[in-house]
């Protein structure tokens, strides 16, 4: 067991997996940093520090800095995957699915089905997402709901360094396209990471804590916010189950339903606007499959139906807050 943060877990896992499997290649904008400059390759080593040293270790053949051409980046990943490689493409900001959606949605997601189940497209797309850095309306969005809705894609969101390693290994060893979401505000999160091989299968949620009075289902940075709320509630003797989904596609329905069947109260916390969201997705599943267990109206703690504003005070108001989560839990428990 080593202690490291999520950033370190990702870069070390990429190093280890690329050494293990020579079919793994990496491409993206400024993932090497310094190409074509006096400073030279690795002068910077990736905007997010998640690809540092890869170029030096594995060379320009397998680690490719690209022009600003997201459609071509994702399209190239799709083509390389069809051709037998395991590309890892980086979208510097998840918001850039706007300029590359077709290759994700109409291409790599559909190849296997559309081509009669005779091929596979083992591409991993790393999307850096989420609010919290005042990056404004076009650099802060959580686009996982959109991609979760798309058959053919798997959607993954680690919240701990151990899961970052485990889920990335699973992504790199599986045979389906994986949307690997990295929350920019969680890169510094520290924790223990198992040494050697550590693979975390998809579709298995993480029970963050068990309290029994209510069920909080969430993912990404909202897991931490939910824990903050839970601490406050614990002080009043209220215990909540917190479920970190880890992957939204596939989804661990059993973990959600089991908890709700015992607590009867559901709160979904989702860092995105409310409409057609992951929050409503979970509520829909529970309302259908655990109807008679529900003792109170399910709560959805989401952002408002608005873009993500820049100013600190506004962004803070946009992102669901620990207080908002706490209030929602108290509402469900107070409901008669």
């Amino acid at each position, binding site marked *: 067991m080593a202690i490291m943060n999520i950033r370190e877990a990702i870069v070390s896992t990429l190093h280890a997996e690329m050494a293990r499997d020579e079919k793994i290649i990496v491409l993206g904008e400024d993932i090497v940093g310094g190409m074509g400059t006096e400073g030279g390759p690795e002068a910077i080593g990736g905007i997010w520090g998640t690809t540092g040293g890869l170029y030096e270790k594995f060379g320009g053949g397998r680690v490719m800095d690209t022009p600003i051409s997201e*459609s071509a980046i994702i399209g190239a990943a799709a083509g390389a995957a069809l051709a037998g490689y395991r590309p890892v493409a980086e979208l510097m900001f998840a918001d850039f699915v706007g300029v590359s959606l077709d290759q994700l949605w109409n*291409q790599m997601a559909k190849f296997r089905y559309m081509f009669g*189940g005779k091929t596979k497209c083992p591409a991993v797309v790393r999307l850096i997402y989420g609010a919290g850095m005042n990056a404004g309306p076009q650099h802060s969005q959580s686009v996982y709901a959109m991609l979760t809705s798309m058959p053919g894609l798997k959607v993954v969101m680690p919240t701990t360094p151990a899961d970052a390693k485990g889920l990335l290994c699973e992504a790199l060893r599986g045979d389906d396209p994986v949307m690997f979401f990295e929350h920019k505000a969680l890169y510094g999160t520290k924790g223990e990471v198992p040494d050697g091989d550590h693979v975390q299968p998809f579709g298995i949620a993480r029970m963050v804590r068990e309290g029994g009075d209510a069920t909080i289902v969430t993912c990404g940075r909202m897991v931490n916010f939910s824990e903050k709320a839970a601490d406050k509630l614990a002080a009043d003797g209220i215990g909540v189950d917190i479920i970190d989904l880890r992957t939204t596609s596939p989804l661990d329905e059993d973990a959600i339903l089991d908890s709700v069947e015992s607590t009867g109260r559901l709160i979904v916390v989702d860092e995105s606007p409310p409409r057609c969201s992951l929050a409503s997705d979970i509520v829909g599943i529970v309302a259908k499959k655990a109807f008679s267990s529900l003792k109170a109206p399910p709560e959805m703690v989401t952002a408002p139906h608005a873009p993500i504003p820049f100013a600190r005070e506004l962004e803070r108001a946009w992102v669901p807050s620990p207080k908002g989560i706490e209030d929602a839990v108290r509402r469900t428990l107070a409901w008669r």
Partner: protein
Amino acid sequence: MSTATSSQAPSSPAPSSPAPSSPAMQLGRDALTQAYRRMVTIRAFEERLHEEIKTGEIAGFTHLYCGQEAAAVGVCEHLDNADMIVSTHRGHGHCIAKGCDVQGMMLEIYGRRDGLCKGRAGSMHIADVSIGMLGANGIVGAGAPQAVGAAIAAKLDGKGKVAIAFSGDGACNQGTTFEALNMAVVLKVPAIFVFENNHYSEHTGPAYATATATDIAGRAEAFGMKVWRANGSDFFSTYDAMADLLDYVRAGNGPAAIELDTERFYGHFEGDPQRYRGPGELDRLWETRDCLKAFRARVTEAGLLDAATLDTIESDVAALIDTATKTARAAPPPDPSEVADDVYVSY
């Protein structure tokens, strides 16, 4: 404008007279026979579809390749299964030229269970990755970036293989195509961009929708790519230009592009009233730009193949297509209970 001597100006409709050292004219009997068989197979396949579609048996949109056979075959006769191509919505010709099973294709277009893609793809998405056919594509311009990725794979494999993206004149207005051209040069990968200029983008002429209609290759050139131009309605012109181009790319010089001037003989899709065509336009095209006619004239005049041989090929192919069609008509549909199968390898 080309940095390579082009064996044919794109605008001229007449088949070119091959260079004295024409690689195509050096081809042996078997190679020539196979090339002709492939072109005839595409022609027969498409013309049969044109008839079958009238019966209402075939669903969805079908885009016929008829008229452009020399382009697909002139390119693909240089390839083996380890070379890869990505195609377009008008993909039947590319599939057949790359070696897709004709019976499997016909079953697919009929939407049958045993189709090449289990009836899920139809005409617009036929693929057989096992032989390097990475898929027809319903999204115009989507293929070019995928060819760059396949070319990255080919470069890493280090066996001198290439990845080819077929695109139309209309597709060369799609941003993805430009991104792919630039990225291929930046990464110096063996990607080849084949632009089949058939002078129509749906119902619009390139003179309108493509700012530089008469010179699509020039766009690739602006990215610092070496380009070729040839007559895509003439097997010999296309084959020769591709021989030269492939020597360049397989040698590790990076990507290249070629503009093939050709014509489509049917509508944009089956059902297209084609009112955008000029009076007598189609008759003129069939008269002056039929690649089969041109091939027959060339090889018989040069005494490379005799008429009887060509006739036999045509009757053999006719029989093959007839069987494929009858089999497809009689074949069982997919099982509706399998509608959600194969979405993932594991889920």
